[in-house]
């Protein structure tokens, strides 16, 4: 029996109010509702993607065009933000700025082939001149680093400093939260006159200048590289700030809710993220335009 309702539209939340009211009255609705709810809780089996990536990269490429290679000219591929970001080249003592706008991520190389991925709403400033012997940059926001071997490498943020020697690590400096995760090698974190040394697999989380947690079971790469936002004892306003950055939208919140939580929200599926948020905080939301969300009390 052909259903007279457009179920695909219903599943995507695209029915008009009149249609969905009518559908909700029908006897079949309850089963469909359960199908929708439980199917979104399903999970595909895990697999080791990093292992696959290693295998892929290991494949030697066919040299199709033989170009002369000048290794002493560092690969200066400044991958610029698609959209409004403009980078300027200055000489000697001037700085270079790289940024990622809301909803964007920016991947680029430093003059020594160290690699950086900037998360949304983040910015890095550094001097190209004499980079090889003085590797220091200023970070606002969040970035993942893969540092080439060489002299020491410093990342300055408003909340603390990270010094490394040939490693892969993630630094997050947002408002009062300073978090550093070490994926490879060794990292020294300085904040408020204190110091912590991280080795592979360890992380430290500093909130309001006090170390509140150190973990040693972190995953192989940061969650945000896989389109997930990870929260660690964050407030609702901090979560909203990150969602605004990732989705490039504005979220209006008239409620004051103190509950903090830890968990993961997707950064590539706004509907799911809002659903989880609304269930956790028991609130409702509406999306009057594509770039605006309003959170309200649950009636």
């Amino acid at each position, binding site marked *: 029996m052909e259903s007279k309702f457009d179920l695909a539209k219903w*599943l995507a939340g695209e029915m008009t109010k009149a249609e969905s009211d009518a559908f909700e009255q029908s006897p079949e609705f309850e089963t469909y509702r359960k199908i929708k709810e439980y199917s979104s809780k399903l999970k595909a089996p895990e697999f080791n993607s990093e292992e696959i990536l290693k295998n892929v990269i290991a*494949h030697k490429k066919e040299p199709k065009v033989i170009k002369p290679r000048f290794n002493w000219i560092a690969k200066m591929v400044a991958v610029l933000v698609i959209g409004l970001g403009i980078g300027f080249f200055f000489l000697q003592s001037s700085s270079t700025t790289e940024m990622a706008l809301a909803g964007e991520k920016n991947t680029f190389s430093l003059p020594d082939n160290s690699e950086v991925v900037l998360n949304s709403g983040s910015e890095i400033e550094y001097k190209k001149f004499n980079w090889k012997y003085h590797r220091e940059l200023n970070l606002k926001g969040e970035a993942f680093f893969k540092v080439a071997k060489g002299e020491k490498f410093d990342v300055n943020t408003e909340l603390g400093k990270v010094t490394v020697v040939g490693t892969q690590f993630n630094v997050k400096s947002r408002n009062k939260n300073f978090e550093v995760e070490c994926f490879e090698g060794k990292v020294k974190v300085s904040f408020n006159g204190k110091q912590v040394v991280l080795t592979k697999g360890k992380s430290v989380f500093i909130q309001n200048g006090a170390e509140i947690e150190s973990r040693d079971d972190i995953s192989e790469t940061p969650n945000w590289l896989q389109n997930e936002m990870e929260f660690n004892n964050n407030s609702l306003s901090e979560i909203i700030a990150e969602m605004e950055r990732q989705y490039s939208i504005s979220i209006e919140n008239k409620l004051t809710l103190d509950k903090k939580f830890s968990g993961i929200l997707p950064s590539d599926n706004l509907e799911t993220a809002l659903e989880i948020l609304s269930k956790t905080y028991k609130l409702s939301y509406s999306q009057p335009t594509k770039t605006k969300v309003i959170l309200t009390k649950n009636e």
Partner: protein
Amino acid sequence: MEEIKKSIGVCEEMVFSNFFRLNVKTLRNYLFYKFGNQEQANDISQEAFVKLWENCAEVPLEKAKSFVYKVANNATLNQIAHQKVVLNYSKKENLVHSTNESPEFILEESEFKTKLEKAISNLTEAQRTAFLLNRIDGKKYSEIAILLEISVKAVEKRIHGALISLRSEIENLK
């Protein structure tokens, strides 16, 4: 002096790795939903990315996604036999923990979930892949259309068909 925006090449290992990490899970899950075989899904995904890496100079970043899906789909053209797709329910679930549920409710819930899993494995391949890409991977219909190289209307038709099929199977088992 203004820096001219250079076109982004996939041959840059960092760019390639970033692209890989953003796309491998969906590609591999799609292949798994299709054939129910984890190893095969992993292998074909790897093959598709290897082809991209080998041809990185010829494939601009904007075309990379459709490239890997094309390769993956071609690799499976000769595949006919497939196994039952086994899925699991997420342990994380919501961030809200339900506390006051009766034992009857919990049992009912568990029974429904089992029926649903079985019904999903009995969907046609076309319906199952579209449905699971939406439900598990959270892909919108427009995104699914691009991945499967079909129209959005075709995706909606598969989703609609999947839902009808699921309900009919679930209710007949009651």
